[in-house]
């Protein structure tokens, strides 16, 4: 068991170094001199330019620059934003709760609908419900979510006027952020209507971001359930005279859940990619929008640091899923 954990942890190290190399390389490969970009349209004197080149260490050999970068990263120093002059690290963690809140809501939405849909489809295999649910799931899976977002805005914000189009809360509410999660902060603030406003702002982004995970979960649940339903112990449970609900929900689903949980864990990358589009459309102040804005502003340290942090986060989640899976399923461990 310990050997399994250690070997998995060891594969993390080269991947981490590779991810650092790639995010380091980007700033050096990008066209245009970052110093000139920083100066903006005003330009700068040669002395100032030389000073900045020295300050950022661009005059050092590449390997020395990488070493500086790597040691900086390991100490939590990802550089400063060219635009705001604030440390990348601080900016990331100021915006991260917004993305986390949205992602958690999206994955809960996906599980609440996707899991029962998959079970119902599997139990009714080949019948009308199965076909209906699985066709819908395939449509969801094929959905260009940026278009889906626009459609929902047309219907629910434009025609019905139910939901706001952008942001996390109406501007009339103002309170200090204690947790960074708008749902919790608005409750803590005690202001009337603040929580409702936060919920209304969350609904459309949640649906948009949750659509593809929902489809994936529904499809995966169905196929896992089908596999389990043909097992002997299910036949035994049926023969014992248990109600169909007990058999399906308690006996079958429990074992079908293992691959489903893996899929949910591995969908973090999908969620973050989806967050880029969702946050841009709904002006959601999270890390997805932050990355897109920084790319357009050519704010290289932010792009570099954000890329690294996101990749490390995806890797950490994947590793956790891997380790948990090994914990649940001993067969994996021995490999």
């Amino acid at each position, binding site marked *: 068991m310990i050997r399994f954990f250690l070997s998995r942890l060891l594969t993390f190290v080269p991947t981490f170094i590779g991810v650092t190399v790639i995010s380091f390389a980007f700033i050096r490969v990008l066209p245009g001199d970052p110093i000139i970009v920083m100066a903006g349209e005003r330009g700068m004197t040669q002395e100032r330019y030389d000073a900045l080149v020295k300050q950022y260490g661009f005059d050092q050999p590449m390997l020395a620059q990488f070493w500086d970068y790597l040691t900086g990263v390991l100490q939590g120093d990802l550089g400063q934003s060219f635009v705001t002059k604030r440390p990348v690290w601080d900016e990331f963690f100021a915006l991260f709760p917004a993305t986390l809140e949205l992602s958690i809501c999206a994955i809960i939405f996906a599980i609440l609908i996707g899991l029962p849909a998959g079970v119902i489809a599997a139990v009714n295999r080949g019948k009308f419900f199965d076909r209906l649910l699985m066709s819908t799931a*395939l449509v969801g899976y094929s959905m260009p979510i940026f278009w889906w977002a626009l459609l929902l805005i047309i219907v629910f914000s434009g025609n019905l006027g139910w939901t706001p189009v952008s942001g996390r809360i109406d501007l009339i509410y103002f309170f200090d952020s204690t947790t960074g999660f708008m749902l919790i902060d608005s409750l803590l603030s005690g202001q009337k209507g603040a929580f409702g406003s936060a919920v209304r702002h969350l609904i459309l982004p949640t649906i948009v971001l949750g659509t593809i995970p929902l489809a994936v979960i529904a499809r995966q649940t169905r196929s896992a359930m089908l596999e389990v339903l043909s097992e002997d112990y299910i036949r035994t449970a049926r023969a014992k005279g248990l109600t169909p609900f007990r058999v399906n929900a308690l006996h079958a689903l429990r074992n079908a859940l293992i691959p489903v949980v893996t899929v949910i864990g591995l969908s973090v990358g999908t969620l973050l990619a989806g967050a880029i589009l969702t946050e841009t459309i709904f002006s959601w102040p999270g890390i997805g929008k932050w990355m897109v804005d920084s790319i357009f502003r050519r704010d290289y340290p932010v792009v570099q640091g954000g890329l690294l942090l996101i990749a490390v986060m995806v890797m950490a989640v994947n590793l956790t899923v891997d380790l948990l899976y090994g914990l649940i399923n001993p067969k994996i461990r021995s490999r």
Partner: protein
Amino acid sequence: MAETAAAPARPSALAEFWYYFRENRGAVIGLWFFAVFVFVAIFAPLIAPYDPTEQFRQSTLVPPAWEEGGSWAFPLGTDPLGRDMLSRLLNGARYSFFVGIVVVVVAASGGILMGLVAGFGPRWLDTIIMRFMDVILAFPSLLLALVLVAILGPSLTNAMIAIALVLQPHYVRLTRASVLSERTKDYVISARVAGARLPRLMFVTVLPNCLAPIIVQAALSFSTAILDAAALGFLGMGAQPPTPEWGTMLAEAREFILRAWWVVTFPGLAILVTVLAINLMGDGLRDALDPKLKRS
């Protein structure tokens, strides 16, 4: 040999494939839609009523023909610059088709080659290649493509390069996994004993037997490529206006969503229908090619 010739005619591989593929009704529908899509992509300039960039300044934002104020001169209406939506959509199919083909060919050929090298090569080379693929897979694909395009400069060509690069690791992993399971089988060993050299072993003996999962992956990445290219276009990092690429069209139409539903609805619908058709086909391909799932 006489015995094999006398045996009852075994259905050809293609006929067998078609037999299983046909059983999946969704896949056949997907195939039909895909055929229409390919036809439109090839003959768009001949079918489209107007040039996709021609601007009719007197008729901007004309609604579709069946709506009040619409006219059959512009069956699906016009966009804010007075360009015919139908002509732009038909021409947009060309870009999506092109993106899909190029991305799949580049990603698959590169990925298969690297997968073969990883599977046949020495242990250290295998480790280097696979760790490198892990690194690429650690980044959310759209984000990596976005940053790559920002480096290379926004254009459709660069978007295709970026997407191909991001999708490549899947082919490497699939190919390597199949190679590792095939490599120790008797037919490969006998080919080796008979004196086949490494390139022959790789491409002639083993590769054809690894193709099934790769073909399924190709269908899946065709649709992913179309979706990602449209997403990049939507973010302003793919095809640039006035190219009638579907994602770019959506980006241009964004500010008009509450005034003119058709400029937003149709390009997205085109993306959805195309991607859905390809995914349906992909499901059918998987069922028909995966022997484990056959008749299950």
